[in-house]
């Protein structure tokens, strides 16, 4: 090593000597000057002007003027980022005015490809780059939100509009059936992000967020303002280098780095006001009173409406509970960064603060983050550096989503319950015949679900350059995440609502992830045209986690939230670990910039699998042809500026199933007999990798000197042996409460195919006299299909709504994933004739407290004359036929205007929230105004008289085995019990009658709740102004930009719920597009300031 250093030292000395000698040999000098302008004749400041072959140079001043002393016959080179270089000979002159043209050729930018970088034109796989500029004006806490609508093939939907809430990101469709395993791998400066999406259960909030609901994003620990660029790798030939973790795509994130030069300070600050743009159309007090009385009269209810409801006209509108729980919320963000460097050391340091209130009371998100990115050349052959970030965040999660959530409760609250009593205390809904209900606002403000997180991510690296083109890079990365989850349920006693028992749970989690990787890269060009890059490396990683939880109840007061102060104290704890070992390599060959060939290989082992099945191998090959560099293209260069063909094939995998499914686990506990040990799963020693194979065919075109760019990609990918838990029938003992069941074995089952097309169009529509208008369009269409479920024993997988017993989706062999499943409503039984002559549910008795006129009529799918479970069918598809993102940007003299629209077409939404809100089965719940369209019953013959002792009529009786109707004599004393004198008044509807108890089960999952979820959303509208330098200079500032933007401005949709953009359901692994009263996305008006100095 010592000699190596000495050699290098000598070499460097020689080089310096040579330079000095060269300078010394300079002879006759002259001074040249001139003005550099752009195509519009405006002076260009800051252009580098260098004498060719020397270090002699200067830069242009604010008006574009330069002065430089050069040799008599020297050439000078003008260069400026974004413009083509200009070279001119100075022989015979001293004044040279230069017009620089904006580069038409894409600068051959360097992109990150995983364990290295490549020139963009060399990349054959399918990937998308997003730059910091593309994210400007973005409002939100996490990088996943940035991706929305911006990249073709990347579908991003919000799981919740809560501050800090998680997104569901799917790249080219769902690669695996189990949705919780289908998030992409995010790699920040080489370190994979842990815990991308976590549920309440995983951090210790249990069901406090609503039966497994409520996900929050691990990505929100990364400050988006620190990001320099993101690379979304979509096809397997691009992702294969990440092998076993790449099945759902990879997002490579590079954070900002310092550049040589003076310290550059940058401040970004925003202030925003968020409001709730939409509300559900619930009944007001008058409407509710009228409905309530009608419900009593129309049904067999034994409890009576309040007296005051009978004359609804004297009532007011009552309380709108949606207004009560929403607020106008503030948000602010601040970020200060400094960057710069010398020849040998470069730095970027930043500190950021993010503070967003939720539009629903009781929810907010705060984050403080810092980052240090350093790199230093210690010797000419040794570079070291670090990227280290620390983030501290605090989520007040509330109980927002799900059936028990504040929102759902507020919807159901009766409009005659005031928010506060006359004394100013909270009011509650307490009345006879129904359990007392708490005040949703009280719930929102007093129930605590808090999550604090501290995340330290650090990457230390060194790079040794053995010789030109041969380097060894070693990285040691750690991600240390502490989190504390707090749940507190207060005791209460107000207005008839009493909860004597408060309870508390506090869980402390910490997890440590580390990885070490070493890889050698060799780059060389032979005979000028043969370029090769070879990379070979090794990686080892380990993650450990542990938690300690304490809970108790009956604390003396609600003031101090410490488990130690309560009784029934319980401790919970757990710990575990996982590890991976990998080898990988990449070979790249390029011929003359025209032909590219890339081969990658990765071999991975994961501790998630048993000894026989640990190792997996993943290969990929891709090739591309830069046709525009061929001779024959020269002739049409002015029309077609870029033409590239890409083709790729690759394999990737998925090991994301959790540890030790290959063996049987048990949990130790106790009951009154003493210690217990419960076996918790059926093992599967054969469990192994899920593999995915995909093809990609892509075309990149640039027309008219790349003013019009078109990127087209076609893909076809097939996932095999998908990792999931078997879904066995109830009688196998694997269903029911998770704490008591024997979990079904996890294994490798089935096959999914996704194919699709992605189109990206970027155009410069106008570029004249300082006015520039550009348009970026991305279009994606994906078709998924479950090809088989081989090995699982099932021919279909079911997804559930809120509870296990309630089936809402089916994933069936040969069909699309997660389709909504239920009965197809074709109308209501409009008369008794209609009822007896149509297919019916024969398990029900005919009668007013059974199946009756006004009940829903379902399609008899199997045509067997009766309605039963065999008539459940596919009633909707949650996946869009296509999605689009459209960005228009207009800049003019420092102004920047941009409009960003996302849209989705053809997706269905299951409006699960509407089940209860149109149930019409209880006097004590408010309902959507839609129930006014319900089937109203009325007598056929209004004049028919019913004496007190009743009259005898022919009454239909259903044989529950055959469904045959026979008639018996029965005495009835009312038209609504009289089968011969009843009909639906408002014929043609699809909404059933109102009746307490819902005896005909009109609430079963049916097309009644399926709605078209297509939408066009004006996601962002922004206007920015760059204050001219003539003003900023006076303030000694380099640049000042002010802007205003509105996000979620408006959504065009037929959907009756709040927001048709609905992500996955955390309750069930096989459900997407189910709206169970989730937190809607707010509309945020933001004002921002961006200052460089």
């Amino acid at each position: 090593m010592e000699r190596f250093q000495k050699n290098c030292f000598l070499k460097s000395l020689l080089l310096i000597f040579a330079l000095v000698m060269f300078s010394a040999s300079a002879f006759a000098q002259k001074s040249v000057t001139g003005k550099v302008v752009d195509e519009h004749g405006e002076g260009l400041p800051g252009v580098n002007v260098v004498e060719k072959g020397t270090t002699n140079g200067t830069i242009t001043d604010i008006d574009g003027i330069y002065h430089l002393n050069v040799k008599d016959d020297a050439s000078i080179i003008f260069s400026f980022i974004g413009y083509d270089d200009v070279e001119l000979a100075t022989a015979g002159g001293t004044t040279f005015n230069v017009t620089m043209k904006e580069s038409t050729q894409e600068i051959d930018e360097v992109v990150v490809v995983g364990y290295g970088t490549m020139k963009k034109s060399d990349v054959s796989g399918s990937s998308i780059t997003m730059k910091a500029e593309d994210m400007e004006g973005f409002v939100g806490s996490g990088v996943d939100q940035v991706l929305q609508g911006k990249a073709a093939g990347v579908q991003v939907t919000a799981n919740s509009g809560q501050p800090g809430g998680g997104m569901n990101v799917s790249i080219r469709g769902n690669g695996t059936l189990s949705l919780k395993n289908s998030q992409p791998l995010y790699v920040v400066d080489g370190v994979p992000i842990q815990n991308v999406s976590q549920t309440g259960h995983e951090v210790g909030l249990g069901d406090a967020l609503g039966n497994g609901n409520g996900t929050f994003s691990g990505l929100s620990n990364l400050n988006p303002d620190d990001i320099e660029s993101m690379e979304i790798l979509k096809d397997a030939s691009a992702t294969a280098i990440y092998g076993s973790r790449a099945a759902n795509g990879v997002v490579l994130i590079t954070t900002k780095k310092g550049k040589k030069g003076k310290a550059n300070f940058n401040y970004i600050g925003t202030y925003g006001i968020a409001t709730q743009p939409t509300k559900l159309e619930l009944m007001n007090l008058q409407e509710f009173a009228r409905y309530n009385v009608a419900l009593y009269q129309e049904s067999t209810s034994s409890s009576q409406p309040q007296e005051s409801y009978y004359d609804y006209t004297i009532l007011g509108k009552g309380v709108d509970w949606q207004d009560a729980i929403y607020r106008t919320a503030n948000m602010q963000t601040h970020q200060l960064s400094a960057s710069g460097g010398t020849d040998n050391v470069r730095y970027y340091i930043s500190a950021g603060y993010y503070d967003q209130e939720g539009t629903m009371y009781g929810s907010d998100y705060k984050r403080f983050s810092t980052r240090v990115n350093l790199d230093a050349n210690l010797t000419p052959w040794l570079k070291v550096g670090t990227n280290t970030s620390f983030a501290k965040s605090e989520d007040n999660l509330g109980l927002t989503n799900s059936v028990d959530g504040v929102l759902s409760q507020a919807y159901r609250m009766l409009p005659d319950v005031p928010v506060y009593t006359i004394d100013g205390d909270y009011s509650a809904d307490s009345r006879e015949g129904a359990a007392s209900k708490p005040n949703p606002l009280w719930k929102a403000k007093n129930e605590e679900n808090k999550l604090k997180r501290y995340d330290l991510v650090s990457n230390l690296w060194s790079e040794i350059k053995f010789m030109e083109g041969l380097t060894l890079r070693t990285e040691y990365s750690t991600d240390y995440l502490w989190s504390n989850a707090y749940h507190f349920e207060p005791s209460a006693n107000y207005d008839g609502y009493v909860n004597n028992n408060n309870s508390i749970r506090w869980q402390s989690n910490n997890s440590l992830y580390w990885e070490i990787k070493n890889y050698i890269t060799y780059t060389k060009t032979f005979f000028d045209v043969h370029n090769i890059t070879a990379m070979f490396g090794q990686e080892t990683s380990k993650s450990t986690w542990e938690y300690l939880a304490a809970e108790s109840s009956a604390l003396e007061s609600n003031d101090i939230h410490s488990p130690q102060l309560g009784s029934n104290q319980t401790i919970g704890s757990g710990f575990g670990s996982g590890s991976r070992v990998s080898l990988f390599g990449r070979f790249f060959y390029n011929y003359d910039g025209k032909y590219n060939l890339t081969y990658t290989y990765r071999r991975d082992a994961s501790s998630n699998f048993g000894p026989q099945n640990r190792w997996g191998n993943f290969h990929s090959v891709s090739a591309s042809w830069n046709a525009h560099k061929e001779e024959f293209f020269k002739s049409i260069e002015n029309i077609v500026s870029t033409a590239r063909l890409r083709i790729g094939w690759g394999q990737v995998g998925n090991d994301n199933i959790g540890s030790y499914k290959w063996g049987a686990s048990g949990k130790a506990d106790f009951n009154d007999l003493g210690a217990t040990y419960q076996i918790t799963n059926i093992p599967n020693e054969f469990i192994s990798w899920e593999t995915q194979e995909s093809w990609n065919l892509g075309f990149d075109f640039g027309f008219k000197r790349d003013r019009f760019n078109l990127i087209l990609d076609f893909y076809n990918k097939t996932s095999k042996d998908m990792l999931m838990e078997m879904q066995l029938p109830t009688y196998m003992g694997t269903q029911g409460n998770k704490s008591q069941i024997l979990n079904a074995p996890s294994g490798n089952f089935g096959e999914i195919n996704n194919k699709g097309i992605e189109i990206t169009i970027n155009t410069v529509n106008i570029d004249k006299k300082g006015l520039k208008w550009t348009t970026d369009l991305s279009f994606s269409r994906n078709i998924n299909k479950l090809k088989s479920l081989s090995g699982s024993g099932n021919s279909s997988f079911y997804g559930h709504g809120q509870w296990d017993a309630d089936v809402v989706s089916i994933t069936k062999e040969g069909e699309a994933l997660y389709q909504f499943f239920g009965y197809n409503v074709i109308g209501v039984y409009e008369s008794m004739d209609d009822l007896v002559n149509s297919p019916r549910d024969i398990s029900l008795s005919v009668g007013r407290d059974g199946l009756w006129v006004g009940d829903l009529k379902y399609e008899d799918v199997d045509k067997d004359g009766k309605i039963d479970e065999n008539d459940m069918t596919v009633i909707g598809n949650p996946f869009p036929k296509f999605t689009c993102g459209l960005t228009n940007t207009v800049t003019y003299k420092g102004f920047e205007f941009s409009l960003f629209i996302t849209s989705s077409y053809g997706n269905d939404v299951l409006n699960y929230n509407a089940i209860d809100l149109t149930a019409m089965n209880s006097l004590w719940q408010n309902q959507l105004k839609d129930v006014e369209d319900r089937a109203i019953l009325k007598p056929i013959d209004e004049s028919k008289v019913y004496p007190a002792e009743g009259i005898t009529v022919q009454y239909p009786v259903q044989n529950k085995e055959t469904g045959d109707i026979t008639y018996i004599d029965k005495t009835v004393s009312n038209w609504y019990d009289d089968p011969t004198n009843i009909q639906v008044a408002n014929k043609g509807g699809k909404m059933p009658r109102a009746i307490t108890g819902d005896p005909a089960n009109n609430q079963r999952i049916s097309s009644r709740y399926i709605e078209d979820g297509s939408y066009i959303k004006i996601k962002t509208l922004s206007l920015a102004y760059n204050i001219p330098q003539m003003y900023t200079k006076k303030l000694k500032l380099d640049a000042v930009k002010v802007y205003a933007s509105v996000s979620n401005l408006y959504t065009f949709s037929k959907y009756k719920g709040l927001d048709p953009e609905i992500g996955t359901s955390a309750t069930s692994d096989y459900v997407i597009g189910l709206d169970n009263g989730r937190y809607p996305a707010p509309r945020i008006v933001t004002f921002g300031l961006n200052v460089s100095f």
Partner: protein
Amino acid sequence: MKKHVIKIAESAFVAAMLTLSACEDFLDRPTEDSFTVSDYFQNDEQCLSAVNTLYASPWNDYLRGYLNIGDILSGNYFMGADDSFQTMTVNSANPAITQASASLWDVIAHANTTIQYLEEANGSTTEAIRNQCIGECLVMKSMAYFMLVRTWGAVPIIHKTDEIVASGSSFNLEKATEANVYDYIINTLSRAMELLPKKIGNKDGRIDYYSAEGLLAKVYLQAAGVGGTLKQSVLDKAKEHAQNVIENSGRTLYPDYPDIFRYTTGAYNPEGLITLHWKVSKRWTINNWAWSDWCAAIFVGTGYGWGEWRGVTLDLQKIFNVDPTDVNSIYASAYSYMKDASKVRKVADYAIQNNSNADTRRQTTMIMYGDYYPLWWRNQGGFLATEDNAYNICNGYAGSDATTTVFSSPTGAQIGKYLFGNKEDHFAETGDYVDKMQAGIHQHLLRLSDIYLVYTEATMAASSSGASRSTSDVKYYNEVRKRAHAEEVSSVTLPELINERRRELSFEGDNWYDYVRLADYDLETAKSLIFAQNRGYYSSDLLKSVYGVEGKTGTPVLNEATLDKVITDDNGKAFRLPFPQTDVAANPNLNAKDGVEYDFSGVDYYNPDLFKNL
């Protein structure tokens, strides 16, 4: 220079190889925070604790099933006029039946898996304990099957869970016929009797030989009429086994009926044959929460129960000779009651009367106006059911004005069985404080007095029709009655025996099956007994007019409700619940009406002489 490169590359390569060679250890990561199953079952204690699980957790989701199926269908409990169990209109989509059945299947899966590992156990385990443990699993599994077959009729037989999962046949399983399921239970219990020890008494609360035999007697009795005609040979088996348990088990009827349902005296009671041992725990499924469904909101602590607007049926009250509108009938049937409805508000000021000849089961089973319970609310001098807001169950709405609310039970009676008082009472009994839906009160699945009644029913000749079956072999029958201070009789008919079973066993989740058993061989009599029940309620205030409470208004209006239909399963079979829809949708074979003959060749202990050839 070159040499160095090679050297460094070499060392990197060596380092990589070293990592890889050590990596099999590095990659081997079974569960760390708990024993893996393969490390467990090493000694007798571990075997026993694996079986202990079956005495609580897997049964948890069935807690509501006991009430819904065992007691609401049978007419013991009024859940509200619209309740589908009340009106016998439960359909296959009802989540309650899915949940209940899932729980029973969980018991079976856990029993099967535990047996599988017990059979492979070695280490320092002893054969005696392994056998005992396997025997306990077999009895729990039989108990679950017994619940299933009586509730749903034909069901699939899951003999070995792992084999069925591995063979991939889970989704094509057929239902076994009801007779097959009974045959399977009888064989399984007989096998358990070969393995289980005979012990004296029930101090450890565990299953033993006599638990298995007691259950066997009851299963034989239930199976006797399967197929439509009562088989005398099967009844004889029931009688024989019942008698053996009564005479040889060393278990005895506990002198005080109420104490069977109280933790300190009841959990390890000499009368218990199969008992679940719940305990207060923050870990869900270890607690008993069944009481929350019938206990009034303020009885244990506000928010701990939601039993208002529900109550013990007028029909069950009637067979105890009590009428909520007749205060004197209440006093006469109570073993401990207040003398008069004076307006004194402090319990200690009441004069408490003791009624030595009242049937102790009435006041244990239900709480009515004026009943006094010295062991509940003992820190406040005992519990007295009155109109007084602070001290009674009659007012469901704590915090609101007592004078404006009505008697919270529309039938005038609430369930008292298995209630334990308030937090302090629960602590005094069990050493733990009760929490919301978390109590440590035990639960009997099979008691000795049940076997006494099984014996009695088995002595009724098979030849006569249901309504006229009777017996004069009433020695054990009278034992049950004597213990409860009820009069002795010289003979008993079947309908009267069914009522006696309701008096003795109501709210223990069993009474519905008495009607199921009868319906199997005499549907019409079973129907007529159900149709004769009064399932109605009072829709206005009982307090003012009956109990003379000041400030109360209204006169009680009786809403009489009787049934004209009994529940049928999806195939029209009466007295059976429809099979849960989720399973039928996944496995259409389950639509097969009566199931198919089960192939017993995989059951190595099968003996056709135990049932099939009888």
